[in-house]
């Protein structure tokens, strides 16, 4: 395998019970790359993310993470290899902000945790002043920031996110994008499944999923030059 690829999906077929949702997805993600996966509701974005982390089993195909075939690995085993996941919920609402962050570093040595904690608190300083508060007391936007912080605690090589804009007002979406923009180009790869095209400002590459298949894959510039896609997602003439 090419060592630049940190995540590779080959002919991935996956779904719920006997019903496939993804029909042969091929996708490569390289280190330091931010890939935005666009698609309408029900296109298969979340299914793809859940298959990458291991919540849904592979029916066919393979997933390689950092050069290793992880198709049969459980979620916690994939996370232990350098993958981090931020779900739509993103946090444990009934636990404190500090506990959420500590759980993000669950697999780390005690000596590494303090350093990671300082780094994450410096990125999200507003969380530091409220570290004893329950995550459920945070606003939707703050919860997303905590979710990002939690995912960063393990210092992952690959960070996958499922609709970080879900349930947020445009103002909070801007805040989340601003936070994520500080993470681009820092060596780790990010895969962001989204409907919100604002996230394209973070991406190097775009993948469009329709009906469980990749209908477009290319650079952000190439995507913007595709008149039909541009119109479909931005709703205006390209």
């Amino acid at each position, binding site marked *: 395998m090419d060592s630049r690829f940190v995540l590779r999906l080959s002919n991935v077929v996956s779904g719920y019970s006997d019903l496939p949702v993804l029909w042969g997805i091929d996708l490569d993600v390289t280190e330091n790359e931010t890939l935005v996966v666009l698609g309408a509701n029900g296109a298969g974005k979340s299914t793809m993310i859940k298959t990458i982390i291991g*919540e849904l089993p592979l029916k066919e195909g393979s997933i390689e993470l950092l050069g290793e075939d992880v198709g049969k690995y459980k979620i916690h085993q994939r996370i232990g290899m350098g993958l981090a996941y931020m779900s739509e919920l993103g946090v444990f*609402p*009934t636990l404190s902000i500090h506990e959420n962050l500590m759980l993000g570093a*669950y697999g780390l040595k005690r000596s590494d945790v303090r350093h990671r904690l300082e780094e994450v608190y410096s990125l999200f300083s507003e969380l530091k002043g409220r570290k004893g508060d329950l995550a459920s007391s945070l606003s939707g936007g703050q919860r997303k920031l905590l979710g990002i912080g939690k995912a960063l605690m393990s210092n992952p090589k690959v960070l996958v996110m499922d609709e970080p804009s879900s349930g947020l007002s445009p103002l909070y979406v801007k805040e989340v994008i601003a936070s994520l923009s500080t993470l681009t180009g820092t060596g780790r790869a990010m895969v962001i499944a989204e409907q919100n095209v604002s996230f394209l400002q973070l991406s190097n590459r775009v993948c469009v999923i329709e009906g469980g298949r990749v209908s477009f894959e290319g650079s952000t510039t190439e995507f913007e030059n595709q008149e039909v896609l541009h119109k479909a997602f931005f709703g205006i003439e390209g």
Partner: protein
Amino acid sequence: MLFEYAVVAGVLFGLFYAFLSIGLNLVFGVQRIVNLAHGDVIMIGGFASWELYYTYHISPLLSVVLVIPPTVLAGFIIYRLIDGPLSRAQDPEMLSLILFFGVSQILEALVTIFLGNNQRSIPDSSLVHGPVHFLGQSYPGVWWIVAGASIPMVGLVILYLYRTKLGTATRAIMADPIEAAAVGIDVRKVSAITFGVGLAITASVGAIAPFMIGGVDPSEGVNLTILAFAVIVIGSLGNIGGTVVGGLIFGVAFELAQLYLPSWSSLIPYVLLLAVLLFKPSGVLGKRVRSA
């Protein structure tokens, strides 16, 4: 004075009820397992304590600790056996309910076959001699000993959950098992340990329960399970701190009912259960979660 007596007795029994119910809440909170055999595990703890006292002259207070290791191990093994079917089930809560109803019946039958269906008791003198005087009233000494033993045991469970890495992982699973796995927690392993701890704390309370409920017999399991369910629903399902509050509310309410409406007091578990389900279904300590 009778009112004060009932309140103090209610607090003493309330602490015991919290100890009696906390294992059920732990097991339910982690894997949504409805353990209908909860009362039967208490019953087995009671028989173990009785056997250890009469055969080896071991104090029931020591039995509270001695029953823990074998039950943790048994719980760990049982969880590994049932985890597969439960995780594949469409409705795991219903399956666990049926499964543990069967376990409850089997445990009751086995104990009846091997030990008979007579009620056994352990003399109060095995724990304490004479009553305890408090605020001008006289209380059975065993009530104070059992309540006193309940505090550290419940405290240990709370410390485990809130001050250890494994406990935080347990609460993370209670909140959301998928999210927990997604931070690297081995959900199956931690759940198995927690199930073992839940059963152990349940068998543990069984060792001193005969002093509060008058003895131990093979058929007591059902009533104890109902009582424990009432306590955890009153406090808040899945909220371990709520179990203490639920236990105290239940204990004081029951003792006051015994004082003022003795013939109605046996209805207290059901009335409280219905009242909480109707007016505050999330329990006294149940919290709303901010949604935006």
